[in-house]
């Protein structure tokens, strides 16, 4: 429990997943994250969902769709692209937009969100730490 893609979920998020606050069925959760120009709402994933969606992105990159989703892997570091081997997808919508934890810079991950740019999908930092991000979501959902 709490391990995805070789990384531990931050304790704050793990607790919120465990209590059902961070879940697809919590209608009070408001995941309004500015870079995501969404038409459908972002859905908070439980641990099996995080595993499935993270794996889906790894598969997409392996099958040649890395550029479409702004992905790199295996330690490659490029501004605006996500190293999926160092990440966990934590929320996603039907339009293939997402929030992810990025462990490539630090064991305490930052939170990134997809943004549609002219050059394709880019991953933008929305919070330097998960705790700050969750605090902002909690305020918006109150």
């Amino acid at each position, binding site marked *: 429990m709490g391990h995805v893609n070789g990384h531990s979920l931050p304790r704050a998020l793990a607790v919120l997943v465990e209590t059902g606050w961070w879940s697809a069925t919590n209608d009070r959760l408001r995941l309004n994250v500015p870079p995501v120009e969404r038409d459908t709402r972002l859905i908070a994933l439980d641990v099996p969902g995080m595993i499935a969606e993270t794996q889906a992105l790894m598969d997409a990159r392996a099958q040649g769709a890395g550029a479409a*989703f702004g992905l790199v892997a295996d330690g490659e570091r490029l501004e605006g692209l996500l190293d999926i081997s160092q990440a966990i997808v934590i929320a996603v919508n039907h339009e293939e937009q997402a929030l992810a934890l990025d462990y490539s810079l630090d064991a305490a991950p930052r939170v990134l969100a997809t943004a*549609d740019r002219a050059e394709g999908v880019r991953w933008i930092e929305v919070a330097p730490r998960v705790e700050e991000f969750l605090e902002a979501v909690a305020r918006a959902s109150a």
Partner: protein
Amino acid sequence: MWWFLYGSAEYMSRLRRQQMDAVDASMLLLHEGFPALSQLDPADVSGFESDAALGEAAEEAFGDVLLAIDDTIRRIHSGDIGPFDMPAVVASTRPQLPPPLQDLLDEMQRDELAWEFWRDTTLTAAQIILAFFPILGPVVLALGVANVAIQTEDLLDRLTMSDAGGGGENPLGVDEPTAFEQAMLGVAAALTVAGVGPAVRALRGGGRAASTLDELAESFPDELGAYADDVTRGAAGTVPRATTSATREITTLTNVSPEILAAEVLEQYVTGSGFSGAYNAATGDWIAVASGPATRLQSGAPIETVAQFGGHAAARSALVARAGEMLPEDAFGFVVLWRGEGKLGLTWRSGTLNSRFPRNAVPDEYRDRIRQAIARETGFTVTAE
């Protein structure tokens, strides 16, 4: 003289046998210490330009052995290979157990062998008996394919485990399947294929056959139900399982040989449930598959969905499986959202299928075509969101 010649020949023959035995024993020791060498034929080690080239070949062979070991470990951990498939493991474990547990282990091993015997026998018998009733074609197909699938999996497991042994006596106590066993499986598969033509046509033709298989899947034990599910899915050209653990089929909305009426299905879903869609602009064909964890039945019963990332790729694959190849420039991704009370909403982004367009969105000029195609097929009020 004759006696001397006979004695001499006998002596030379015995000496030769001893030499061969010594070489065999040495090779066994060598393979035990260096399993990679067992992957190399004599022809493999001759004709190399240099020692470095030979070293590379040996390294590659060693990699093959490691891969086979990795694959075996993964399949043991995932439960794909059960402990009773490895006689040497059972034999080495037994003496370490207290006597009552040894008896229990023996009993479990007998039960496992009995289960495998009756499983194979029952499936084969049912396949033969039901073959006399043409109307039950899909059932025969399911049983036949399930039977071949189970035998194939057992055989592949044994191949994997015997490969991982690296030559010599297999440490797991598993022998490689004989050529006879492989040939017999081929015959079983060929007989099944010969009998499935009418059944596949029945499946492609409509929902009656598909629902027959659905019922069949439900009536089977879990393991067989999963196989029957696979048969249903494969024959009907739908998408593979993805995210959830249940063994149900993924709900698929489409205008290409639909098996279910959208109106009958969507009413059972909670409002807001979503389906990742793909549209072929050249033919007007479309398909949408249930996606994501928020797509749920009102009853709370578990269902299968595809991942949301890659959901459009799954939809595209499903459409190609049903309607044939589709050019990349004809493929458009969209999302169908169930809004309740006979209403559907459509959104237009897809990272997978629309990345050639600004904001990954379907261009305006194609949206109404998609909207009308879905409205026509479902009978629902469809609006762009």
